[in-house]
């Protein structure tokens, strides 16, 4: 039950993009087409779940016993960068079609603040191992959901007559604002 609440809270109520403002860059950059939004979402979810596992192990088995908590930021970011590189290599080796679908998005994920944010939030809240993993998957699902909805709206938006100064980033932000309003409806769920 506890785990279900963490999942729903990370995916819907406290959506990473729309209420924590994590991962805005890919949210604005990659949400042009639904197909690429789905690929990006999948790649991010995958890396998020792995990051949750690895960063929990790193923090609780290495940093805490040796009293090195102050190295949290550099060690997390290095682990994430290495992890993304590793995932890219594995996918390239194992499945070419998957690599072609996710390939270009993987390097972008390193600088996605949602990933580092996830690792930091999980350790700040003192989640145990299983909770961290569920939190990672939930956050990834929420990220994918927001990205896909946004891409759907933006495909329609291309046909709309937006005033010239508002084209591009401004109208995307305004649409995201309305979407965030809609997601506020989930606040009563838990």
């Amino acid at each position, binding site marked *: 039950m506890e785990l279900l609440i963490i999942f729903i809270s990370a995916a819907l109520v406290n959506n990473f993009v*729309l209420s924590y*403002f*994590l991962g805005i*860059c890919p949210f604005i950059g990659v949400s042009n087409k639904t197909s690429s939004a789905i690929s990006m979402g999948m790649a991010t979810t995958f890396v998020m779940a792995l990051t949750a596992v690895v960063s929990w192990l790193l923090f609780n088995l290495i940093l805490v016993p040796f009293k090195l908590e102050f190295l949290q930021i*550099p060690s997390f970011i290095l682990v994430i960068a290495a992890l993304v590189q590793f995932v890219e290599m594995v996918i390239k080796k194992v499945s070419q079609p998957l690599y072609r679908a996710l390939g270009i998005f993987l390097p972008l994920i390193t600088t996605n603040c949602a990933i580092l944010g996830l690792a930091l939030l999980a350790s700040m809240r003192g989640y145990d191992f299983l909770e961290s993993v569920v939190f990672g998957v939930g956050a990834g699902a929420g990220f994918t959901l927001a990205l896909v909805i946004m891409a759907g709206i933006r495909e329609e938006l291309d046909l709309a007559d937006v005033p010239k*100064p508002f084209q591009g*980033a401004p109208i*995307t932000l305004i649409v995201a604002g309305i979407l*965030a309003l809609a997601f*506020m409806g989930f606040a009563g769920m838990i």
Partner: protein
Amino acid sequence: MKKQVPLLREFTKGLWEINPTFKQILGMCPTLAVTVSAINGIAMALATTFVLVFSSLMISLVRKLIPNQVRIASYIVIIATFVTIVDLVMKAQFVELSKALGPFIPLIVVNCIILGRAEAFASKNGPLRSVLDALGNGAGFFISLFVLGSIREIIGSRTILGYQVLPNGFEPWLIMILPAGAFLALGLLMGFANLYIERKKNLVRESLIAQYKRVGREEITDEVLKEAGV
């Protein structure tokens, strides 16, 4: 050797011309997340500027020692070091602010402004220019965060920097301090900034055309307009 830009330009260009938020659209996450009040915006901008200036200085000093293939990783380690310093100092000295900004201080590491300036500027220029460029970009970021934070604080909770500016009769717009308000406010602000730039460009363009007519020269060409930047 490319043409040397005057030193002062390296600073002033960051204020508006390549303003990180409005022109480069970088570092959106902290911009949206912390601007609930003007003071949070100021704190975030100062912390980011500190990291930006010192990592730019450091990167430009060691830029010739770092092999090209591992430069991004090296930059990130340098940036992470300074972020750790800021994070620990904030936790020790400004407990309240550090709590309000939450994970966004450590997240300065992945703020694309810093890596962007490192890659685009500090890795190619000397220390003095890099520091000026970093200061300019930091100041530009400061302006955006302060403006956005002030707007949201005034409308959302009637105060600015904690002082009440709107009368009690004004019902605060709660939405402005909620996440949705951040997106709406920044989107509108960007749109109106674009509108203003467009207007100004048109004015310059019209006055240039009028000037050409007055001296009786032939039709103004596209090249001339392009040169004037309009």
